[in-house]
């Protein structure tokens, strides 16, 4: 226990300790196992886990660095532990959400009943940056739009889970979910014994099943590929990793060619037809004929093949409209509208700057709020009111007034914390959770997800681009 001696849960919801400092029941066995390690052993094992990432090449490139420096994503060996009932709750909520989101997208790209019924004001959708009106009336295989969703969940001081955003375009990080488990198993095999941690290794299999499910070709085994922007992309490791785990080819845009509305890849034996593309390139770059003309990453003509139904894309084109933070506001309403159910997982309370009353509230309370641009991610385009300077606040005030459609505000949620090893001591650090939801034949979610941790003291920003690290996530059996 020496490592946890003097650990202060603070005035936050701590994942491992209750308010009175006692260990939460489901964490007690884990804590006991860590207690058997002395600090030197712990540090040696921690160093081992880091070496594992480095040797596996699980690194990202530091941009603007000529030396080609590569860094590993910091990994904290203290897992985040979740009891079975908590996970059941999340699983039900996430399933409900992805079903509603897909019904919404199908509706928006067909009859737009939800707009006609006035549940969502039309202009919010039509002005959404990633809405693709040119794809209205195009049918997609099995009517699925978001096949892989990486929702960000957070837990407030009240211990309740909230959905922070949905990430229905190309959510990344699933490889870290898998490799964090591998690294922890190698470095700390002892702590897994008799804990009843549910395995996560089914993810690539589920992903491949889903890709097969949406293949437009019914006879024979479909040819699935993973389309990557290339090896200089910061998620390239993940692309390779998933492709290899699934046993499919990883291709770049230049490896594909469209002939008579069919997609082929260039092989040493000529052209081979491709049926399903798990694309890790955004809409904007995927086809220079339709979207950004200057994109050299995409495949000219791909959208023609897609419209003709000769190739399936996961995720579908145009899902970005659901990632718009204004549209996010309406997801609970979508759940009620399409499913007639109460949302199981609530949104974080959100104010829309283009609603008059909300706007007033936002401008009045800027120093207490988090302001977000509707279409930014990765912790960019954000104002953290409580820590912002006067100039920053003034700057955002102007921006909000100039373009209210593209700003939302939320109260600062003080994310739950988890004990994390920081420079020689165990300290509480804020965390979130990104589970990966796969929607194919049925909805599948591997137990847990990627727990991201803000390594900087008191920081609430967990993004890897902004000093975040990650942890293994344990969902326990009943």
């Amino acid at each position, binding site marked *: 226990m020496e490592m946890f001696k003097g650990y202060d849960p603070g005035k936050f919801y701590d994942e491992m300790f209750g308010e009175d400092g006692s260990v939460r029941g489901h964490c007690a066995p884990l804590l006991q196992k860590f207690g058997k390690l002395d600090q030197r052993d712990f540090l040696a094992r921690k160093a081992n886990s880091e070496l594992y990432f480095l040797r596996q*090449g699980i690194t990202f490139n530091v941009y603007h660095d000529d030396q080609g420096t590569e860094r590993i994503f910091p990994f904290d060996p203290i897992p985040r532990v979740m009891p079975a009932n908590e996970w059941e709750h999340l699983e039900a909520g996430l399933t409900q959400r992805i079903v509603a989101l897909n019904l919404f997208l199908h509706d928006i790209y067909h009859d737009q009943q939800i707009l006609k019924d006035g549940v969502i004001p039309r202009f919010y959708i039509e002005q959404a940056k990633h809405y693709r009106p040119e794809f209205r009336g195009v049918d997609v295989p099995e009517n699925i739009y978001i096949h892989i969703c990486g929702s960000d969940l957070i837990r407030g001081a009240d211990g309740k889970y909230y959905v922070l955003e949905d990430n229905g375009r190309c959510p990344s990080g699933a490889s870290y979910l898998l490799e964090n488990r591998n690294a922890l198993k190698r470095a700390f095999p002892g702590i897994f014994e008799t804990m009843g941690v549910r395995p996560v290794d089914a993810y690539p299999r589920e992903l491949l099943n889903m890709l097969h499910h949406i293949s437009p070709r019914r006879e024979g085994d479909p040819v699935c590929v993973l389309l990557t922007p290339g*090896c200089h992309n910061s998620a390239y490791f993940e692309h390779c990793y998933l492709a290899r785990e699934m046993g499919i*080819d990883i291709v770049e845009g230049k490896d594909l060619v469209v*002939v008579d509305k069919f997609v082929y890849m260039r092989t*040493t034996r000529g052209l081979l037809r491709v049926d399903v593309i798990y694309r890790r390139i955004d809409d904007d770059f995927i086809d220079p004929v339709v979207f950004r003309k200057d994109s050299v990453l995409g495949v000219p003509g791909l959208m023609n093949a897609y419209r003709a139904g000769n190739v399936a894309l996961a995720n579908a084109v145009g899902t970005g409209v659901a990632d718009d933070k204004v549209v996010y506001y309406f997801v609970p309403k979508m759940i009620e509208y399409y499913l007639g159910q109460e949302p199981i997982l609530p949104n974080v309370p959100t104010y829309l700057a283009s609603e008059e009353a909300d706007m007033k509230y936002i401008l009045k309370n800027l120093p207490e709020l988090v302001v977000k641009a509707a279409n930014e991610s990765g912790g960019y385009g954000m104002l953290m009111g409580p820590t912002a300077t006067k100039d920053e606040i003034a700057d955002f005030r102007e921006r909000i007034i100039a373009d209210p459609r593209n700003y939302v505000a939320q109260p600062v949620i003080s994310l739950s914390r988890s004990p994390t090893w920081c420079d020689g001591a165990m300290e509480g650090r804020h965390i979130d959770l990104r589970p990966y939801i796969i929607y194919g034949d049925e909805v599948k979610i591997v137990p847990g997800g990627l727990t991201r941790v803000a390594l900087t003291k008191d920081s609430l920003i967990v993004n890897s681009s902004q000093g975040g690290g990650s942890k293994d996530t344990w969902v326990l059996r009943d």
Partner: protein
Amino acid sequence: MLSRVANTLYWMVRYVERADNLARLIDVNQQLLLDYERLDTDRLRGFWQPIILSTGDEEAFSKLYNETGSDEVIRFLTDDPRNPNSITSCIALARENARTVRDQLSDELWEELNALYLFSRSDEASRLINHDPPRYYENVRRSAMTFLGIAASTTSRNEAWEFMDLGRHLERADKTTRFLDVSSYLPTANDGMESLSEETLHWTAILRSCGAMGAFRASQREISAQSVVDFLIFSKDFPRSVRYCIEKVDISLHLISGTPRGAFSNEAERESGRLLADLNFGSTEDVFKAGLHEYLDALQERFNHIGGEIFETYVLMPERVQLTPVAKAPSLSAAAWWQWEQQQQQQ
């Protein structure tokens, strides 16, 4: 398999092989220096000059360095990032290629190459280069060998393997000719520079660079220009002889296309078949009649021709792309050509 992947695997292995060969070349010659009794600056230059000349990078070298001393040459060939053919550059390129086809490689194979890369950039490596060079070169050689061993025991014998094998043997043949070429630039006994025993030392060094000393001795011959050239070019069995490597190239090419050996279905096969026939029926007489340097030069050109045709056939595929009406190929072939250009310059 994807054309791009085939090309990348081919180059990955070529770069590993190149790093390995360079490490041998430098190590052996550094040790050879110790056998000389008197060395002044002039003689040192005479010693290293041929090595730079044989790598074909003399221009790049003279741009970067004024002196041709041990330190400069060793730095240039070992860890100068400005030289795209230095050992560390080759390792980085091999690893970069591996990274783009990571999904094709076994974990162990990737880990070995990645470990070599991490080593080459470590403080430990710089320390060894300065204070214990033989250890450094040994590390590189061992790791390259381990890499090949792991590749051999974890790669399915499919197209991927054949493209890797092609890269290895073509690079190896090329490097063997370059090792031999070192002798072309050496001052001869007639120049009054070298005694007979020193000439023998040079041939010994060339054999050792190829790791051929033991195999050579086993065939019980005197060390002479004649016998070493015969062994390193025409040996049927020694895995670094030019003939052996080209036979392997020919086999791989035919396995990839499925064409029976002795026939050809593309230019690469035609050239490898012709070259192999020349080597099967050739002798050292032909070599010295043409002049050793000229003969080796011609061989290197033919290797490049084979390499170029492999790229033409399996990566660019001009005919097949033209058959498809929609494919606007310029962007592809421009990019591919660019890549090819890049790689060619590094030969």
